[in-house]
């Protein structure tokens, strides 16, 4: 037979027939969908197609949502036993699983992430968060958090666009399990799965007002943060906005948790399993287009293996499949917005002008939509902007070190402290390094692994408090110190 040496994968697109997107959406307040006044478009970042019109919540909408949440808290949710609350959470989790394909397709259309990731990571993990916290609802008295732990009341929650449904689950599941009611605002560019989740709340017959979803931009977020009827604020997003929120709530009685930016070090020692380390580097920075607060965006590489690792990394990066997020074989999808793409371009241009060496994987980028090829910068030093600022895109800065202590010093030399990675086959070195690193999450010989049982959160400017696990529950209970 004729020997053809290339194995081109034919397009394998997931069907979008399973989702029905309305031309216009309102808010979800008091168990009902209510229409909004002003609207703005939400687009598919892979095609720039307008998917729908999203309502921009103003003061009246936020007031109504807070009022509905307060009423639900006072009359229903705070009087219900933990066991009964748990039943609702289990029901929501099961419905999310049943409708998982719908959630995955909608998430990919609205966010631009590959269907493989929304299908295999975002949606299953979101359901897992509800299952996990459903189990806590009737066991709070036994969690070692005091004999009668009490909810705050109404929680205001503001989530980012990188993992829209998953961040919703991280926020709503523990809040409800602990007995709070919520007003949640999804990110401006990715509201659709939150609105689908509102349908799930109806389907699960969750009492009206326990979950309220208002859509909008930063102005809506500010209304939530400053609302006097809210007892607790939970925010995931940029450090700049996190600082604004911290200032705004400082003179109030509001409790607050913040999950902010990062510039994680991924340290590869010379005794690492090199092929798996290369996989881990790729997962660390190219997972979800690098739109990950805990992304391993600084590769800190031992000089003795630097050439070998970089050769293998480039070889591996050349195999990353960039393109249509709906194709089941796509590894790297679209950048979420034009604004984010411009930010990535600005910071990478700074990398060029400051003398770092850019290398991008050879790949054809689609003509429409927002795209950025997987890129690494070598010859980066601590003084470069691309070593200090969060790029939040598929861009890796590579630094080198000579001794283990130097690796730790470089890793910790950042105002952030969300996550870190260590690659070594030597256990004693791994344990030593984990003790030295100032980061909330440290992965050894893996990266970007998430589980609802594991607390997640940052040191320094990467945030306050923890989400997930028993630690995460404390954020939604009164008078419990944050561990």
């Amino acid at each position, binding site marked *: *037979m004729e020997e053809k040496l290339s*194995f081109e994968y*034919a397009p*394998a697109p997931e069907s979008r027939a399973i989702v029905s997107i309305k031309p216009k959406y309102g808010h979800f307040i008091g168990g009902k969908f209510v229409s909004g006044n002003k609207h703005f478009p939400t687009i598919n970042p892979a095609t720039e197609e307008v998917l729908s019109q999203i309502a921009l919540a103003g003061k009246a909408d936020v007031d109504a949502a807070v009022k509905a949440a307060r009423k639900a808290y006072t009359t229903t949710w705070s009087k219900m036993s933990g066991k009964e609350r748990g039943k609702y959470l289990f029901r929501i989790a099961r419905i999310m699983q049943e409708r998982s394909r719908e959630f995955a397709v909608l998430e990919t259309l609205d966010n631009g992430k590959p269907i493989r990731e929304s299908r295999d990571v975002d949606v299953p993990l979101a359901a897992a968060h509800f299952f996990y916290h459903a189990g806590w609802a009737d066991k709070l008295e036994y969690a070692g958090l005091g004999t009668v732990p009490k909810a705050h009341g109404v929680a205001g929650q503001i989530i980012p666009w990188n993992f829209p449904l998953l961040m919703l689950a991280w926020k709503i599941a523990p809040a409800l399990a602990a007995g709070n009611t919520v007003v949640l605002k999804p990110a401006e560019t990715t509201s659709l799965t939150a609105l689908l989740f509102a349908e799930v709340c109806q389907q699960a017959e969750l009492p009206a007002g326990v979950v309220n979803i208002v859509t909008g931009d930063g102005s809506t977020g500010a209304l939530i943060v400053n609302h006097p009827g809210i007892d607790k604020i939970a925010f995931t997003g940029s450090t700049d906005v996190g600082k604004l929120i911290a200032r705004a709530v400082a003179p109030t009685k509001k409790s607050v948790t913040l999950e902010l930016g990062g510039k994680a070090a991924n340290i590869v020692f010379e005794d690492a399993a090199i092929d*798996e380390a290369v*996989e881990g580097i790729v997962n660390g920075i190219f997972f979800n287009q690098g739109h990950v607060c805990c992304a391993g965006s600084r590769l800190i590489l031992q000089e003795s293996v630097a050439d070998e690792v970089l050769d293998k990394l480039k070889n591996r990066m050349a195999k990353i499949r960039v393109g249509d997020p709906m194709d089941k*074989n796509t590894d790297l999808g679209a950048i979420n917005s034009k604004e984010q793409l411009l930010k990535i371009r600005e910071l990478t241009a700074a990398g060029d002008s400051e003398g770092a060496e850019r290398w991008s994987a050879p790949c054809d980028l689609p003509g429409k939509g927002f795209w950025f090829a997987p890129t690494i910068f070598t010859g980066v030093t601590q003084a470069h902007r691309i070593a200090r600022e969060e790029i939040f895109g598929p861009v890796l800065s590579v630094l080198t070190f000579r001794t283990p202590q130097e690796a730790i010093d470089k890793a910790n030399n950042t105002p952030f402290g969300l996550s870190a990675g260590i690659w070594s086959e030597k256990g004693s070195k791994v344990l030593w390094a984990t003790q030295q690193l100032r980061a909330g999450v440290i992965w050894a010989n*893996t990266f970007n692994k998430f589980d609802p049982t594991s607390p997640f959160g940052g040191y320094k400017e990467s945030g306050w408090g923890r989400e997930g696990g028993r630690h995460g529950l404390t954020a939604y209970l009164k008078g419990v110190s944050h561990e």
Partner: protein
Amino acid sequence: MSYYGLVDGTEASLKKYLASLSGVDQVGADARAAMLATRSIKAASKRWAIDTAISMVDLTTLEGADTPGKVQALCSKAVRPDPTDSTVPSVGAVCVYNDMVGIARAHLDLIGGEHVGVAAVSTAFPSGRASMAVKIQDTQDAVDAGASEIDMVIDRGAFLSGRYIEVFDEIVKIREVCGDKAHLKVIFETGELVTYDNVRKASFLAMAAGADFIKTSTGKVAPAATAPVVLVMLEAVRDFYAMTKVQIGVKPAGGIRNTKDAIKQLVLVNETAGPEWLKPSLFRIGASALLNDLLMQRMKMDDGYYASPQYVTID
């Protein structure tokens, strides 16, 4: 023998060479193989993969009950897997015990299958438990009978007790017996080596000793050609090529029974060693039942429906 300048034949140099290899993280290797298993291969790419997989099959019968009649039937199937469709390629080789080599070669030549190889399992297959003299004679018999490929087993006992130099020397000696008449495939029996570190070590050892192919298993021990094991071996041939500019082939054998499994193997090759390895001279699949499933899937792609299994020949 040059050993590509990697080893000078002494135990010290072999130990130094093997110690220079990085380890394999099992969790990471498993995760990478599982991710590649999610690739969705459709339409024209699936059709290409099926034909490519057929041309890579080492159609195998390794039974105590093998007879000349059984082997001749296998040879007919190897040359024309689907007698009703001449566009179906021949398989790569037939794989038999050493006493069947002459019968297989003669029958293949008789029916126009000169291009199909005969692979003989050798060196006291499958256990490898015999003296060196017996192993050499076993191989010599197969080469004399016309085998174009020798599938030898390594001495797993020696490997697991750290006597790597013995394993190395055996491969070197068998390679000499093969001369320029036969390609040498070295079987590790990865189900007995167990760890991926061992698989990587065995791969580099065998390549430096002169293997043309590295092969997972005899087919007599489970687990056999699991995806992560094949991944580790494909990484090894890729890295060995970077060091020496010599391309070594890979042959998974055992447990690959259907088209889906075979396509997953081709995806592993494509995204690990690279598309340069996607040809029968560098990738083979040791199998028996697989061929008929490939043929059924091929017919399904042409006709749009699954035919009764009676439309493919049982041997």
